[in-house]
């Protein structure tokens, strides 16, 4: 079976934080303890929405040492394929769900003398767990967090009241901006930078840090992509000898799984590389959206990451 180990959980609390973000709390159905994890880890939540099955990754934001419950925060995406809408509209306290063991693709570099966190919007969630971990280990950290408005600033109040010296908040509607070059310039040697937020923000931080002479290894980032809807297309799976249809609102990976073919995966967000699949033949255009393959691989027409990437054209044959 593909993916990380599964855990059967019950939803024990749902807290709407603002117009867009709602927090969910999970506890084990059998009453046992959940695995500890490292700050930055995510879990993949399985959603059964009538006959549609979705699996979306969400960063764990609770205290990594608290084994009684996990919490995640879900931002509603009205243009998405419906995973976040399902969480917001259909999931109720008491519901039983399946989540994966924690997987960390965005862990702290524990050699760092200082951890500098840069968050945009819902990108705050992995840092909430990392901050709790560092507080327990007496680690040194600083957070710079941009939100659209005070009303949409998830966890701003608790961050600024608990960590008035470490947490710095910026509101877009008040034209507040991180003075990034200045911020990077003032860091002590041995600082590592972590950025989680929209793609534009990640690119901005990576480019600015590179221009300032920061080593590539000291800049860490995580951007989970949600699979985007798109035109339906047909795929031939050569190994399992099946022809499948990928619907407008499902990913290629989900369509493969729906056909009963066990395909490897881990993050389902274009980052981990597990679902990399060889293309045997094609006639048409790939819509590559992952962070795993490099530009040359995207252009080669030899590989696709079915968790987030799609295809438009006549023929696509995969080695699966």
């Amino acid at each position, binding site marked *: 079976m593909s993916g*990380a*180990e599964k855990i059967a959980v019950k939803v024990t609390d749902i807290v709407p934080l603002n117009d867009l973000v709602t927090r969910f709390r999970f506890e084990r159905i059998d009453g046992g303890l959940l*695995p*500890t*994890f*490292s700050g*930055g*880890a995510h879990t993949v939540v399985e959603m059964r929405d009538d006959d549609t099955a979705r699996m979306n990754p969400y960063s764990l934001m609770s205290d*990594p*040492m608290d084994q009684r419950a996990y919490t995640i925060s879900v931002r509603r995406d009205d243009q998405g394929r419906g995973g976040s809408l399902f969480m917001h509209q259909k999931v109720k306290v008491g519901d039983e769900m399946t989540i994966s*063991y*924690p*997987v*960390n693709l965005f*862990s*702290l*570099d*524990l*050699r760092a003398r200082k951890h500098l966190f840069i968050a945009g919007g819902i990108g705050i969630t992995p840092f909430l767990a990392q901050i709790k*971990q560092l507080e*327990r*280990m007496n680690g040194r950290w600083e957070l710079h967090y941009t939100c659209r408005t005070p009303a949409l600033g998830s966890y701003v109040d608790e961050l600024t009241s608990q960590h008035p010296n470490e947490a710095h908040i910026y509101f877009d509607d008040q034209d507040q901006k991180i003075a990034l070059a200045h911020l990077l310039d003032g860091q002590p040697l041995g600082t590592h930078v972590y950025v989680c937020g929209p793609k534009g923000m990640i690119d901005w931080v990576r480019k600015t840090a590179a221009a300032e002479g920061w080593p590539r*290894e000291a800049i860490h980032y995580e951007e989970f992509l949600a699979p985007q809807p798109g035109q339906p297309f047909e795929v031939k799976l050569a190994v399992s000898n099946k022809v499948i249809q990928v619907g407008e609102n499902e990913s290629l990976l989900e369509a493969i799984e729906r056909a009963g073919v066990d395909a490897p995966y*881990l993050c389902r967000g274009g980052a*981990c*590389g*597990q679902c990399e699949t060889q293309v045997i033949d094609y006639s048409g255009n790939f819509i590559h959206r992952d962070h795993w393959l490099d530009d040359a691989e995207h252009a080669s027409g030899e590989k696709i990451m079915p968790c987030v990437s799609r295809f438009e054209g006549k023929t696509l044959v995969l080695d699966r």
Partner: protein
Amino acid sequence: MTIQFNDETFRDDYSFHNSERAIKRFPFPFHEDSYMYSVNMEQHRGGPPDSIYEMRFDVDEHYVSEMRDRAMVLADDPLRCQSLPHMTLAGWDLLELIMVSKSEDYPDLFELHRDGDRWRWVNKPLGIDDSFTFLDEATLPYGPMEYITRQTQGDFCVLDQRDDNLWMDAGMVTTQADWSLDFDIGMNFFEWHAPVPLAHEKGIFVRALKFLLNIQQGTPARRLNWTMTVNPLLDTSPENYHKWGIQKTSLTPENLGAKQHLRVELQTFFRLPRSNAMVFPIRCYLCSFQDLMTVPKWGRRLHRVVRDLPEELATYKGFIDNRPMMLDYLSKFDDGLPTSDGIWPEVETEPALQRA
């Protein structure tokens, strides 16, 4: 399960010995009549009853004596145990993994009592009963990795994961097949494997690293590796090569069956939860040729594997000079009959040796 612990040595008079039970559960590493490198990984979740695969950390009749030997090695050379400063959290992860596993798998030998961060650890075979505060190093006599690996058979490499690579940033290494933690400390996966012949060309290490980086919490993995050792020595380190290397010249046709040992490593891989590091335990099992020959299938197969092994590998594994003498001995246990697939002894179904 009751285990009768041997009182034995792995040096000087070499009183190490395997009971009949230990021979039967020895991890014979060849699943067919030939050998070549492969990424022979499988999930580490149990195995046949009383096999070395059954428990997460196998405890056997050599436990108490192996721990005594480790303490002697460390007394002579404290650099066999090292942990870079950022690896302390991983050390606590390892301590927790081993204490939880052993107390659940061997409740008659080990107990773990937890009340929040207040822990009590009871190790009956070694006569230890310690109370300490989890994540507070000041409450243990050693750092957490050293504390628990002084009580656990096998070497331990604790690997940091960063930049899509694994880094040998901590370890307890006293029962190694001729490599040095002190030399390798701080190296990455490709650096510390640089001396291995043939496997690089086959792309083994690129694939192995990709596999290891993707091992997640809850899904440990395992594989077997092997080499040859003259005399039942645990500490075949480069640091002590001047002591043990010369012993390879002491083999004679008469003493070979007793002195020549097949050395097998059970290598397991666990993701550590709090640090996101990996631990790579390398557990060494030794068995003399004469004990191996009591299993007809193993006698036939070992002869064929040793005979057909590429020269580079026999050189790398350090027995090229002794190979002709080993083959003279082993050929007497190979009657040419076919062998069944797999590593298990199958003493019930495999025919006895057909000629003396």
